[in-house]
């Protein structure tokens, strides 16, 4: 009899702890969600060309500019070292000037992230350029046949964050 009572008491204690745990964890989850929501802009790694004009980012302010290297925009200056290309998010584009090494994956259509600042003439002067790799993993033959059938694998994941930023 007393054994049954003690086991029932044990069960109700476990239930109390379960309720306490669920309550504490929900509060914690809500708190974390609020912090993340409040700081959402600070977690962004780069800004897109549309966001640069929307936010009126001043010349000289250091930013990371992300987007696709526009097709047909890549040129090399006569000194053989200075590179010019445009970064676009499909809506807006910005001309970029860069003097330095490019990652192996750099090519027209590729997503890149350039770190630097706008100069007075509205040209983005980059001090480093990183290539973004997409989530697709395919053998070369498959990629070639996909490109032929029109399903190119160019950088496409920039339009969406720009739209979200405008909506908010």
């Amino acid at each position, binding site marked *: 009899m007393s054994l049954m009572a003690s086991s029932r008491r044990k069960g109700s204690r476990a239930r109390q702890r379960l309720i306490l745990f669920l309550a504490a964890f929900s509060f914690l989850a809500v708190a974390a969600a609020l912090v993340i929501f409040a700081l959402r802009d600070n977690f962004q790694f780069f800004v897109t060309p549309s966001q640069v004009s929307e936010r009126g980012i001043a010349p000289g302010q250091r930013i990371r500019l992300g987007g696709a290297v526009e097709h047909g925009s890549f040129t090399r200056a006569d000194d053989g070292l200075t590179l010019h290309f445009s970064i676009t998010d499909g809506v807006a584009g910005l001309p970029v000037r860069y003097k330095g090494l490019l990652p*192996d*994956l750099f090519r027209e259509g590729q997503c890149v992230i350039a770190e630097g600042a706008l100069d007075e003439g509205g040209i983005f002067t980059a001090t480093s350029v990183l290539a973004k790799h997409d989530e697709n993993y395919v053998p070369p033959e498959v990629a070639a046949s996909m490109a032929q059938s029109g399903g190119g694998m160019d950088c496409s994941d920039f339009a969406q964050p720009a739209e979200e930023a405008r909506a908010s």
Partner: protein
Amino acid sequence: MDMHKYANPARFNKLADAILPWSLGLMALAFGTGLYLSLFASPADYQQGEMVRMMYIHVPNAVLAQGVYVFIALASAVSLIWKHPLADLSAKAAAPIGAVFTVLALVTGAIWGKPTWGAWWVWDARLTSVLILLFLYFGYMAIWQAMENETRAAKAAAILALVGAINIPIIKFSVEWWNTLHQGASILRLDGPAIHPDMLWPLFTMMAGLVAYFVTVLLWRIKAEMAARKVQNLRYSRAAG
């Protein structure tokens, strides 16, 4: 099923000894075929070339780094709520394994990132949240080391593990909520995996091998931990007697 019956060390040891040959065998088989498939019998990537082979090590470690943490968090909840003696023991035993997976994910990612992105490390949301995961593992292990009283250490460590569990969805969705240098999800995404089947199967084989490795080492570590507690109890009772 009454889970409390596995709190009996003899019964648990029997169960572990029955599982161990199988998990060891699966581990050898999966790593053997997985390494052959991923290093020799799978194609190079259309833009990364041979660097894609880093994925077969990086992705399983990154997935398991989070998986082991989820295991620790669940075990900690069971330990706090139902006071199952095996729960905090298995959480404690799992932590160093998960920490090693996290270190390997970070190191292989850096080795891949330098030639692919052009940088060993950047402070984007994905990389930073995984670094925080590593610090959570260190903090969890430090609490166990720092407190003399096992019961109090178990409680403090369990609370830390559960608070830190908030970081797991942040890691998973970091590449969707924010723009990052790290690419988006390749496997768990709405329109199916973005990895060609010729590369996906070697990856799954390596993942199975790492899961079997985790199960094997976890069981060994729990057995060792149980033996250590037994020795300590004997010492206490001798000192008392």
